């Protein structure tokens, strides 16, 4: 038996959010946190959370699990239960819509701001644009981002300035296009990032690296962008 303590808030009936404790029998199995939530939803259908692929690639079920942001579907209980208790809250720093569901508009807005699409004005060839294996290897560790927002909502700088600081996820994607040999708009991209907030608000706290469920390293990507900006400035 473990205690599952879940953040509850229904804007139609609750004035304030509260924590609700459920008792849960794991029958000795090391389930994923999402499995537990699914089973609790059978008991209480009003419990609300997002989920889709249940294998860690769609990025729906980012939440704060015993103090650390992660995906419920690939976080086993053994990693999250302490003293027979697990505490589940929505991702921090963004408005809560209901229970574990947050309003991600601000997060998506920052993603859109970096113009996350390839720009190449030269006429496209009849076949694909060629790219060497070395050039393609530069995209590894960047394109795999699933937009789950675990990193950005773990970042104090993003909590403080979510309108102005792009945040680790958006910057990882910004670098994904800066690093792509097929993209020709690096200069324009950089000039749009060169204010004191978009990139330079990263203080190297590295919470993003610690929580990324895909093992990506946004801080390193931000460092690359910063170096490109500084090279451009000098």
């Amino acid at each position, binding site marked *: 038996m473990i205690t599952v303590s879940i953040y509850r808030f229904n804007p139609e009936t609750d004035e304030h959010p509260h924590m609700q404790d459920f008792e849960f029998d794991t029958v000795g199995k090391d389930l994923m946190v999402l499995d537990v939530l699914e089973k609790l939803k059978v008991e209480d259908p009003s419990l609300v959370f997002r989920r889709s692929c249940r294998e860690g690639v769609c990025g729906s079920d980012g939440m704060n699990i015993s103090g650390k942001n992660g995906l419920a579907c690939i976080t086993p209980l053994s990693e999250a239960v302490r003293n027979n208790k697990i505490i589940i809250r929505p991702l921090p720093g963004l408005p809560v819509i209901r229970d574990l569901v947050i309003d991600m508009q601000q997060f998506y807005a920052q993603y859109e701001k970096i113009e996350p699409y390839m720009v190449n004005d030269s006429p496209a060839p009849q076949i694909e644009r060629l790219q060497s294996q070395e050039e393609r290897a530069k995209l590894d560790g960047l394109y795999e981002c699933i937009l789950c927002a675990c990193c950005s909502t773990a970042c104090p*700088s993003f909590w*403080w*300035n*979510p309108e102005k600081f792009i945040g680790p996820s958006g910057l990882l994607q910004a670098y994904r296009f800066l690093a792509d040999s097929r993209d020709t708009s690096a200069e324009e991209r950089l000039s749009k*990032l*060169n*204010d*004191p*907030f*978009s*990139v*330079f*608000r990263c203080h190297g706290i590295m919470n993003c690296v610690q929580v990324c469920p895909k093992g990506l390293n946004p801080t390193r990507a931000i460092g690359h962008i*910063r170096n490109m*900006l*500084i090279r*451009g*400035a*000098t």
Partner: protein
Amino acid sequence: MNGLTLFFLRSGSNKWLLQRFAAVIVLSYIVFLICVLIIRPEMDYSDWVNLNKAIPMRFFSFLTVLSLSVHAWIGMWCVFTDYITVRLIGPKADFIRKGCILLLTLTAAFYVLWVFKILWSI
């Protein structure tokens, strides 16, 4: 952003570079002084006055204080724009933050002028 930010500093990379450049100057000044004290452990007050009277030394000291205030200004500006925001403390934040930045700027300027006065009155 705000009227107090110089045009040059609207670029994040310039700000970043300037802060680090200033840090290097401050650091080299400290290293220089330590070296002086190690080489001349028997230095007395008149030696000290003579050292600081030298024109290059005056410039070096002045540059260091200038760098220190620039470094501090950028650092504190970051802190103010992180914490004194509408998001964190409500609509009065903009007013308070601008006030703080003004105070910061005046303080930094005051110290720079004061040090200038001291250095050129030795």
